[in-house]
């Protein structure tokens, strides 16, 4: 084995792997320099596991319960498919809201959640926003064959910390004011396509089906990784066992007082 590396430097860097392994962190490949050290990391992982006290080596019951819920969804999906084989619809878990709702029903569902959570003012702006933001494909300014800038809301309707639903012919989403940054986000959960609901007090978009929460940048906010790292969503039973892709984020611009979202032609 060549000893070309300075042993102190290598040992100090490798200690980061061991610190995470033996502590509560998550070991990172970045702490490992080459294949030799990867062998050492595997050795260390096996040592750590072999020397774990039996009760310390068992899975977290909360994790097991969350994963069980995912598996149950699959069982529910099978049932749905078997009951109606000719219908080529994506299965949905029992107890979830139907997938195809009218705009009005969607609006009412969102409003109910918003009102239940606290903010009458935000509820009103959601209502106003939806009415005016249901824009046909031919009412925006045509920019190219691929899409166009659709006017979805006015800036004065969207103070920091609020969100408005909008729909174009091709796209359903939210415009959000994330501490001064205006952004458009898809309202479709990247897990099974349920419609997200804005929660003002949590500043997130929450999936009613399986409780995934996306932050106002469109990233999964209560995945287990984020949950462990930041301590956010402490006590949230819906902390998500998997990583999900980010929400679709169409281009957004503000001209004067008007918020536009780039949307594809339907």
């Amino acid at each position: 084995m060549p000893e070309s590396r300075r042993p102190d430097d290598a040992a100090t860097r490798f200690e980061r792997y061991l610190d995470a392994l033996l502590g509560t962190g998550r070991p990172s490949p970045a702490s490992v320099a080459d294949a030799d050290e990867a062998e050492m990391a595997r050795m260390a992982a096996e040592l750590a596991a072999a020397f774990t006290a039996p009760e310390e080596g068992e899975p977290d019951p909360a994790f097991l319960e969350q994963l069980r819920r995912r598996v149950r969804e699959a069982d529910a999906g099978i049932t749905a498919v078997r009951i109606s084989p000719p219908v080529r619809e994506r299965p949905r878990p029992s107890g979830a809201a139907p997938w195809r709702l009218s705009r009005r029903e969607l609006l009412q569902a969102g409003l109910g959640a918003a009102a239940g959570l606290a903010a009458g003012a935000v509820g009103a702006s959601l209502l106003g926003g939806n009415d005016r933001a249901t824009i046909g494909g031919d009412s925006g300014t045509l920019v190219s064959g691929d899409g166009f800038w659709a006017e979805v809301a006015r800036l004065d309707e969207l103070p920091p910390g609020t969100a408005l639903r909008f729909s174009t012919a091709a796209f359903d989403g939210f415009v959000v004011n994330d501490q001064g940054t205006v952004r458009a986000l898809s309202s479709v959960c990247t897990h099974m396509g349920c419609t997200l609901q804005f929660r003002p007090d949590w500043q997130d978009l929450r999936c009613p089906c399986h409780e995934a929460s996306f932050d106002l940048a469109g990233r999964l906010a209560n995945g287990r990784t984020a949950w462990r790292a930041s301590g956010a969503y402490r006590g949230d039973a819906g902390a998500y066992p998997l990583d999900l892709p980010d929400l679709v984020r169409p281009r957004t611009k503000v001209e004067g007082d008007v918020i536009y979202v780039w949307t594809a032609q339907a």
Partner: protein
Amino acid sequence: MPDAPGPFEKVYDAHVLGIYRFIYARVGNHPDAEDLTAQVFVRAVEQLDTDRHPGEIAAWLYRVAQNTTADYWRAFYRLPLVGTDHVAPGWEPADTSTPPSESAGDSASTRVETVLRRLPDHYRRVLQLRFLERLSVAETASAMGITSGNARVLQYRALRRAALLEEGPDA
């Protein structure tokens, strides 16, 4: 929610603890063991035929667990990820060749004991203090009467030697 467990939930109940322990023995930490276990069962939900014989189901799950763990280590070896998602769906998952020294049948703790026995005393001592007693580097150094810097270098060399031993006679 179904009242009685469905077919996937039955598979889950029968195997989740075994799969978790199998993976934990190979990654040595809970956050990664949870992620990889979830990956195995998500893949089962997508691809596993629950009408199969229970023995075949178990064999399938453990092969997926082994491949998933192998992919995890690929990132440490800087090897291109085969990615379990890219393996052609089918009953038998393709055997994504495992990194060196993967021997699924061995009992991990037996192998660890053998390795420790074959190490020089001061190497074995530093690994016992760190991994068995779970002392910090500073505590280990103080228990051995050396500096923290020396303890870090000692554990580094001990792990290097142990990794070489683990590869066995054909290494």
